[in-house]
């Protein structure tokens, strides 16, 4: 049972031009094993929200609870995957994946087993001893996901993890992530600006407003699993996509207008 709850989180920054309200009273509860996606127009604060969830940023108001307990610092219970991979270039693929177990002082034999399993699962066979510089973008991100999973976190936080990949690789990665998720049943909070990605992956989609970011709509994705490539051409998929596209478009327009007024 691993649940993450973001409760009444607000985020304000003081700048030279006055106070900027980034997030406003956001409450999201992601129950055990759910795949939750957060989408919104650019600059709406969705990445900030994920940083708050990870404990990397302290919110101005509100709190983050894991299994009902408030958290104040980042920890191994909330693993994070960034868009920029952030692999450690001086460590081999295997040592990158074993980074979490290593600092937790897990016995060498045990962490070897964990990394070997994840290397196979992430289709990285034969690259265990390669340095990150030898890997493609998609492979790097598979290592980053494996590294997060190796610590066996309660919740997996993903910040536009496939944003830097080309369309074909992204599709493959989404399918791979779906497989992995069905195997481990982790609670996932997945931030993306790609609406189709959110529908393909998520059980539920939170659509955010433009700044200051709030949750505008919550949508249940009632497309049955396992979802495959065919899901993308289904009728229900198209309906959901049109619905979300409409909302985001409206919010993006609002963002542009407020920028014009601000200028």
């Amino acid at each position, binding site marked *: 049972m691993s649940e993450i709850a973001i409760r009444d989180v607000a985020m304000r920054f003081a700048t030279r031009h006055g106070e900027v309200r980034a997030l406003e009273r956001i409450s999201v509860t992601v129950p055990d094993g759910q795949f939750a996606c957060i989408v919104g127009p650019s600059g709406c604060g969705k990445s900030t929200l994920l940083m708050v969830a*990870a*404990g*990397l940023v302290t919110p101005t108001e509100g709190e983050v609870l894991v299994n009902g307990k408030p958290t104040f*610092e*980042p*920890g*191994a219970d*909330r*693993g*994070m995957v*960034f868009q*920029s991979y*952030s692999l*450690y*270039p*001086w*460590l081999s693929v295997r040592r990158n994946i074993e*980074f*979490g177990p290593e*600092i*937790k002082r897990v016995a060498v034999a045990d962490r070897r087993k964990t990394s070997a399993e994840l290397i196979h699962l992430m289709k990285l066979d034969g690259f265990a001893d390669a*340095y*990150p*510089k030898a890997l493609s973008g998609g492979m790097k991100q598979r290592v*980053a996901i494996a*590294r*997060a999973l190796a*610590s066996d*976190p309660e919740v997996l*936080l993903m910040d536009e993890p496939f944003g830097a990949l080309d369309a074909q690789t992204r599709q493959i990665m989404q399918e791979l992530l779906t497989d992995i998720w069905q195997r481990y049943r982790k609670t996932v909070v997945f931030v993306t600006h790609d609406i189709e990605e959110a529908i393909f992956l998520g059980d539920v989609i939170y659509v955010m407003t433009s700044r200051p970011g709030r949750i505008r709509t919550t949508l249940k994705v009632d497309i049955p699993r396992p979802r495959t490539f065919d899901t993308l051409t289904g009728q229900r998929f198209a309906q959901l996509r049109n619905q979300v596209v409409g909302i985001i478009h409206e919010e993006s327009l609002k963002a542009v207008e407020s920028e014009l007024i601000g200028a």
Partner: protein
Amino acid sequence: MSRVGATRTAQVPSAAAPQRRQGFLRTYLTPKQAIPAQARLALAVGSFVFIVGVWSGLAALVQNPLFVPSPYQVVTTWWDMMVNLGFYNDVAWSAFRILAGFLLAAVMAVPLGLLMGSFEAVRSFFNPSINAIRYMPASAFIPLLLLLQGLGEDEKITIIWIGVFFQLVLIVMDIAHRVPAEMLNVAYTLGASRWTVFYKVFLPATFPEVVDALRITMGWAWTYLIVAELVAAEHGIGSFILIAERYLRADRIIAAIITIGILGLITDAVFAVAHRVAFPYVEKVHQ
């Protein structure tokens, strides 16, 4: 030139299928285009041949071995310096001063620079003053240090230290500052403590560039040393040069300067090899 001509004719429309144009100019004058490995080597050797050639020509033209000695003359002088004048002794003195001054500066500048790059409090305290001192030329301190420390080794070492420390510390600070925040954040979300993040992520992330910075500042150390030795020293390459000047021995001066160049080249090669061995994971920018 005939190769160029061949390129031109290949451009003329013909019945044959269009081909990728090739030719000497296309290979060597396309920006950022790689050239064959043999050509790279030939060009590198060629640059030395060119310099020696121009120098020989000049010496033959001027016909004044006192002021413009030929390359051959300089080589024989160099041999004479080593065998009869104990020049190797001066080289050893200079090398010792360089090593002492440089190591002292590095041992202090690298940790301080890393701390300045990672902790804003340390940066706020040290940065303004170091930045100001950096603009004070190390050579301007020589008279002051002669007053304070006299003619001894500590004066030379202090000059090198001043010349290297204040520059190196700011370069290292910049390197530390550029370590991506996400690299550290990932470690926190894997359960790392702040101390673990510091020594398992932050430090290793800076190492390759720190070695690069040492390599660059080592070159500067030579400049400050020779200046210090020219002003006042009993031994060392700089003092050798000064004495050679008094005896109007341009050939000895040139031989000494070339010796410094060769020592620099050797140091640089050592750093390059050490870098490649220690950091095989770094993506190569220049081959």
